[in-house]
């Protein structure tokens, strides 16, 4: 395993996101968006072959599909039917790890995919809706990928609309514990984080090459836990880059982070 010297920030993030799936074992990994999907696919093809994945439509696969047009001769490696109604059976059975990109994340790890500003009756900006976030957040492990780490995503106050449960004592349902919530990793264009700080505070685990602790603090709307002597996020290996290129033959990953910067910004 040779660490690559040339790689993009998107590729660094794919590898960092893949790490989130390392210890999952036999769970359904759902990566929504190009970077999370490539991350889950990389994990399944390398260190977690037990992982399960769908074709994003209706079948479970024994090998991940490459992204985009796969040519007329391509035969996907189906292992079972997995339509949407069955996804809910899996979610409520808790054997899933989803990685998605919410519009807002607050200091409790609550997220918003629904609407910005205004009221419930008349939001200022309507977005997707709650989608499956409420159910995902209380049923199984979740991770987030944020392609642009800034104070509009990591907001100062509470989310305008709370789509998913987080570590907020004020909203803790009766008979539940904050430990029931499992927000595993938050990977951004600046760093890797979790909610393992004191009282579930957002905590930085590693800084991407060339990124400073100060940069992360400035771009986060609330206090986060910044341990001393943080490691640098591991560079992709040459082997990982080859696998990623095979999974993304049309290079969709080049369009996921603004201007597709190099991974090392030092």
């Amino acid at each position: 395993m040779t660490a690559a010297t040339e790689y993009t920030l998107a590729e660094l993030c794919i590898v960092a996101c893949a790490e989130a799936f390392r210890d999952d074992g036999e769970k359904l990994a759902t990566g929504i968006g190009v970077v999370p999907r490539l991350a889950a696919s990389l994990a399944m093809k390398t260190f977690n072959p037990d992982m399960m994945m769908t074709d994003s439509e209706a079948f479970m696969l024994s090998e991940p599909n490459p992204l985009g047009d796969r040519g007329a001769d391509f035969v996907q490696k189906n292992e079972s039917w997995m339509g949407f109604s069955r996804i809910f059976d899996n979610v409520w059975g808790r054997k899933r790890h989803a990685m998605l990109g919410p519009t807002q994340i607050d200091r409790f790890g609550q997220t918003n995919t629904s609407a910005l500003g205004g009221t419930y009756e008349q939001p200022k900006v309507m977005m997707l809706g709650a989608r499956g976030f409420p159910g995902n957040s209380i049923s199984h492990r979740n991770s987030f990928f944020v392609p642009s780490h800034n104070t509009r995503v990591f907001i100062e106050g509470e989310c305008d609309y709370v789509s998913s449960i987080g570590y907020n004592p004020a909203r803790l349902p009766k008979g539940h514990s904050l430990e029931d919530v499992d927000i595993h990793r938050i990977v951004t264009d600046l760093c890797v984080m979790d909610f393992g700080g004191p009282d579930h505070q957002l905590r930085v685990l590693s800084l991407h090459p060339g990124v400073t602790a100060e940069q992360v603090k400035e771009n986060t709307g609330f206090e986060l836990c910044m341990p001393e002597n943080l490691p640098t996020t591991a560079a992709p290996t040459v082997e990982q880059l080859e696998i990623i290129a095979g999974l993304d033959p049309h290079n969709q990953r080049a369009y996921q982070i603004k201007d597709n910067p190099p991974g090392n910004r030092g």
Partner: protein
Amino acid sequence: MDKRLSAADAVAQISDGMTIGMGGWGPRRKPMALVREILRSDLKDLTIVAYGGADVGMLCASGKVKKVIFAFVSLDFIPLEPYFRQARQNGAVEVMEIDEGMLLLGLRAAAWGMPYIPTEVGLGTDVITHNPEIKVIDSPYDDKEWVAMPAIKLDVALIHADRADARGVCQIEGPDHYLDDWFVRAADTTIVSCEEIVDTDYFHDPIRARQVFWERSETTTVVEIPGGAHPSSCNPQYGFDVPHFKTYVASAKEEGGFAAYCEKFLGKDEAEYQERVGGLDAIRNIALPIY
């Protein structure tokens, strides 16, 4: 028994103020020809229940909707449905915004004649704080609180299928029937449009029989409308019409955009609509999406 009707006669079963559930998911296998028939009608004050796409957007834009029960409204490759967004941002429709799974549980409760189904989904989120009609209850069996997801009873379900016989045996040939079976079971009246009406012996083949997801007793009416899911997809027959959706989305940026869209495409009936969007052969030649 013969359940075949014309689209106009089928939609004539709907009255003002009814709650209508829509099959399909986002831009996939939506009963769009039946939606267009509603657009041509005088119906109003409808409550729409959907995993929403342009079906919800168009009905909102036409002013026929009082309330939407939804978890998302999206065209997938264009994440935000422009006319639903406008309706929300203008405060033009009431809403019950819930989780995708809660919507399924609400339909199941209705299908099974239960007032609610307990779930932990929604706890700790604004789904509960913003929807006071969704109650949180104590359990007789443990010390936790649970969301009592109320039944979502439908007056009518609108579904688009691949094939049906005259008695209402309906086939969904594509890779996913989504939650269509639960919309059907939650409804008093189910209207199914289909690509093709077939003879009953079509279903003697056990593979085809396995593509039937509810009993014919749940089907009220069948309408043969080939291409009737356009511009949404009907996999494996055809994909969704990306250029048409882009035109539709662009229309929302103009003042009076939806009226202009209808003026250009809707027509007096489905035959005229299909002529205006390039014809049935063109619809059937739309490539399937790659995910």
